[in-house]
């Protein structure tokens, strides 16, 4: 019996999110007196797979089949359910990212498992098995009891620390039989930006709102983000106006992020916006309206004109780097 953790790979590579997942799984396994099996779908190099062993995975599997090259929700869910059944795993952990959200429900139905989604802490108790999750779009948290025999947790990104616990796993590649009657998704084209820090992965995010006044004013904001090795984001009006691409929209209906540092520039802080960023560890607000609600959620604030403050911040970070 093991805790099963799904670590997706990106072109054969893992990232911080993968190590958070394995570290979390190892801690849950510790509470249950179990071992951890980490697995990925699709080929990853042995050196990459070994990395998962550093964070507490006792077994590391890479499941391969030509039929698994494109993610089809039901095909992949079945592969995960079959593995859980074979391993006798009663706890399955996935990320609460796009892939995890796509796969967890199918696994849940196949194994009749309750899901704790967007979990941000270790289980509150193991008997009954109770997890702590985000609810009401960040306005509350809920303790949820998973009553089913098999339990699924989707872990919120950047909510658990990475802990080195070398378990010396030797990666195994497993050829899996795929139910050919299931695949129904075909990808006809892909557009992907490379070399850019993803908004959902970024530890620092600099975000602009309507207070930036014009799409032409973004240069210092982009420069600040780049100097801090961060990503850029924006509020909904900005993406609706087409000032910035819609994938930068953070907020209730946009991306939900939890960076270590979120710098909101010219963003008033409507409830809908805060729903997407309230899990950030630190929020900095820069706004010329001292009564803007964003200051209630921020730990640091500057009341001032963004166009004057941003260049000075850029200079200050440059001085820091000297």
């Amino acid at each position, binding site marked *: 019996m093991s805790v099963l953790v799904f670590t997706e790979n990106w072109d054969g590579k893992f990232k911080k999110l993968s190590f958070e997942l394995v570290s979390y799984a190892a801690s849950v396994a510790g509470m249950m007196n179990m071992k951890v099996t980490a697995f990925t779908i699709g080929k990853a190099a042995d050196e990459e797979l070994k990395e998962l062993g550093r964070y507490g995975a006792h077994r590391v599997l890479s499941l391969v089949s030509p039929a698994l090259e494109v993610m089809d929700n039901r095909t992949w869910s079945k592969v995960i359910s079959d593995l859980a059944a074979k391993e006798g795993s009663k706890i399955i952990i996935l990320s609460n990212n796009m892939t995890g959200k796509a796969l967890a429900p199918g696994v849940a139905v196949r194994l009749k498992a309750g899901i704790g989604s967007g979990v941000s802490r270790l289980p509150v108790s193991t008997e009954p098995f109770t997890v702590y999750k985000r609810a009401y779009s960040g306005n509350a948290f809920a303790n949820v009891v998973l009553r089913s025999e098999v339990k699924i947790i989707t872990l919120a990104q950047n909510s658990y620390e990475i802990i080195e616990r070398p378990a010396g796993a030797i990666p195994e590649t497993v050829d899996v039989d795929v139910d050919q009657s299931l695949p129904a998704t075909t990808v*006809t084209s892909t557009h992907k930006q*490379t070399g850019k820090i993803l908004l959902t992965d970024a530890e620092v995010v600099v975000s602009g709102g309507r207070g930036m006044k014009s799409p032409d004013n973004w240069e210092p904001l982009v420069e600040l983000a780049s100097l801090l090795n961060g990503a850029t984001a924006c509020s909904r009006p900005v993406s609706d106006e087409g000032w910035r691409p819609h994938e930068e929209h953070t907020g209730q209906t946009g991306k939900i992020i939890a960076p270590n540092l979120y710098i909101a520039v010219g963003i008033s802080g409507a409830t809908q916006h805060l729903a997407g960023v309230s899990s950030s560890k630190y929020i900095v607000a820069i706004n010329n309206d001292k009564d803007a609600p964003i*200051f209630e959620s921020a730990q640091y604030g500057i009341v001032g004109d963004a166009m004057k403050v941003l260049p000075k911040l850029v200079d200050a970070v440059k001085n820091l780097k000297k």
Partner: protein
Amino acid sequence: MNIVVCISNVPDTTTRIKFAEGSSAIDTAGIQWVINPWDELSLTRALELRDDPSSGVKKVTVAHAGPASSEPTIRKALAIGADDAIRVNCTPSDAYYTASQLAAAIGKEGFDIVICGIESSDFNGSAVGGMISEFLGIPSVSSVSGISMENGMPVITREIDGGRESVKVTLPFVAIVQKGIAKEPRIASMRGIMAARTKAVRLYEPVDADCLTEIAGFEKPAPRAACKYVDPDDPGKLIELLQNEAKVI
């Protein structure tokens, strides 16, 4: 071709959520109930397709699992333009139970595409759409930011990390949609509100289904420390605080 849009009845985002600390239910007094924002966008896109004769979409039905008290939200969806509605008369206690009810009812209806929002703004479970697909035994596509029809077949835009891809899928299927699916939610016109009164809401009784999870209690988010203000003429001070006090850069 028929589209079923699943809608959830949730408190308006700007409503302040109140509950006794540790309580397993929120205080519903004074709450304004609305169509879940993602479901509202789903409905908008479904109606855009129906209103375009070249799409082949003829009918849009909204499906809801909930008690009679959520009828006003269903009427709102009808007023926005849905052709008819189904309601499973139950209390949607968890994702597994809710998806079981919706799948059973939708399975009895004729449909080609089921659209679900990625999550509901109350429980944030992100599970019902994917579960419906598995219960019905039909494919699903997640992270959908666009649906169009070409020669009677759906062409879907699926968001992926750092980009998007174009995906083809066989009918019938479930689309689990998010940001981008429609720009602004469609608003009900006066004529729509009048017409909604006479549109049919077909009632289904719940099937036997289990509830696998249970809310033991809600907690309020930890309060944040009061904001520390930095002089706008000396933003360098902010960088210093972020580096030495917060230790985040």
